[in-house]
């Protein structure tokens, strides 16, 4: 990995995970404890769209080349088109039948191998994913790749002149400003700003953008050590969460409503 070259276009890889659409409310695991990807339509993980937006803003303001990187079944190409329609320049999809049922360890190894084949100044990842809600892959990847790791980003400011990047990191009591040399891996949050909608022109352009699909073999990895067969965690059970009790609905005057609330809180010793 070459350090940032002043005067050259910044290269950003955005990790995007196709996830079952949370709004469709049809996500489920198959009997084998693996995600049933046929059950719900896939969308780009919501938190990944914020970092994609941050990358596209950098492309708008100072110029940047934006590559999407996903590990998903082959039909994820269609999900990635939305990111391309938003303005990303190309996609790389790692897809292999052996990856079904991968745990987060395999995900780290696969994304690591894929990143080793790409050139970049910055890697962006979302805060977590709506299906698995792991939020640990970014830190593990940065560590494997020996990249500076800047997380919980509310603002990302690369300076190609000095070859460094500054990140405003949300802390429990305010925020810290972090600085590190590029290349670096950054995990971003919603505070990066609302993702744009693809324009009609963007949607048209996305059709001809390139999505390269790579198999485990293309990455020099094998299914003995990686993927569902090599998973180091297993789902031992699944159940519906316990149903909450029936809902009491009160219609009437504001006073009656307020009294109903006070009565409930009082009976449960909350006041």
């Amino acid at each position: 990995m070459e350090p940032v070259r002043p005067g050259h276009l910044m290269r950003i890889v955005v990790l995007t995970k196709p996830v079952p659409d949370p709004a469709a409310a049809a996500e489920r695991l198959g009997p084998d404890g693996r995600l049933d990807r046929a059950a719900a339509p896939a969308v780009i993980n919501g938190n990944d769209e914020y970092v994609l937006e941050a990358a596209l803003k950098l492309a708008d303001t100072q110029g940047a080349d934006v590559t999407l990187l996903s590990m998903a079944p082959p039909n994820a190409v269609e999900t990635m088109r939305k990111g391309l329609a938003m303005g990303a320049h190309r996609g790389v999809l790692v897809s292999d039948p052996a990856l079904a049922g991968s745990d987060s360890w395999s995900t780290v190894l696969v994304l690591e191998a894929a990143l080793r084949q790409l050139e970049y100044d910055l890697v962006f990842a979302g805060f977590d994913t709506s299906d698995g809600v792991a939020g640990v892959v970014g830190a593990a990847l940065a560590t494997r790749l020996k990249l500076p790791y800047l997380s919980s980003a509310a603002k990302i400011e690369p300076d190609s002149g000095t070859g460094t990047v500054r990140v405003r990191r949300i802390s429990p009591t305010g925020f810290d400003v972090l600085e590190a040399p590029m290349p670096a891996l950054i995990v971003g949050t919603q505070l990066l700003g609302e993702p744009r909608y693809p324009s009609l022109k963007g949607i048209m352009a996305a059709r001809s953008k390139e999505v390269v699909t790579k198999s485990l073999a293309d990455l020099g990895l094998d299914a003995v050590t990686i993927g569902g067969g090599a998973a180091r965690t297993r789902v031992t059970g699944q159940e519906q969460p316990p149903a909450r009790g029936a809902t009491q609905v009160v219609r009437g005057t504001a006073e009656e409503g307020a009294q109903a609330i006070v009565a409930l809180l009082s009976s449960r010793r909350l006041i």
Partner: protein
Amino acid sequence: MTGSVASTGSIWVVAETNADGSLAKSSTEVATLARTLAEAAGLEAAGLVVAADPGAAAEELAGYLPRVISVAEPAAAENAWAQVAAQRAVPILTSEPPAAVLTGAGPDGRDVAGTLAALLERPLLVNATAVAWDAGPSVEMSVFGGKLVTTSAFTDGEWGIVTVRPNVVTAEKAASPGKVESAEPAGQLELPLVKIVERTEEAAATLPIEEARIIVAGGRGVGGEEGFKLVQDIAAALGGAVGATRAAVDSGWIPYAQQIGQTGKIVKPQLYLALGISGAIQHKVGMQTAGTIVGINRDPDAPIAEFADLVVVGDLFDVGKALLEELESRG
């Protein structure tokens, strides 16, 4: 889990500290969990604090665990914490193979867990809502926005790292405090350091929502900053914290720190009072495990009516003001 090798070694907690050097609340919970699991499994529980000045937090952690190792690492003062801490933790955690390593599932906890997983080449189970012990951690997780509860384990013969959600364990000190040992930071820090060039503390307007017993939250229906005044007044009358939906945060009515839901915080208060909140899935995932859920909403068909204990149908300002009067009249 018959047939698996009985685990040995300790259940470790990698603790986090607050800006003032005290122990993070989430670490008191994780430590309580580690001790409980170790007692049930006949294992040792131990904790680790890595900080520039770890003394106070290590003493506090020893209130929960029989054994605490404290590592004073000056680099933790001016650099991002997680990668520094993980590197210092590695030699201690590998001096004997652990039975499991537990961290919090907040931003620092997940960063340290991810880094440790990479350095130790261990698997991870994340965002535990409950952990039992069955030859290894048996980890309950809430997935798909709370639509499903799964239980997972490391495969036989593996040990791994588990991140534990805040507020799923009640912190409880041990009958007698444990011992603190100091360990010197050994060797170079090989991962690139990330410098902290500026720290800004924002005045905490209210109690942090993750720690609040009662949360009064407002959504789009609150209409503006002025409307949030009523939310704040009710929260104050109940001794609670103020929460919000993403729509309210995006509108700039209230800071992001107060946001509850998929892209905000996940909370589990005893009471969640929702004003002008429809209860869409993205918000529901952040609060659905609250003890008691009460909604005040104009729309009787809003999704919140499917999972609240009580929904008052009406104008949130009228009902809210009446509620405030009721609460104030109770003194």
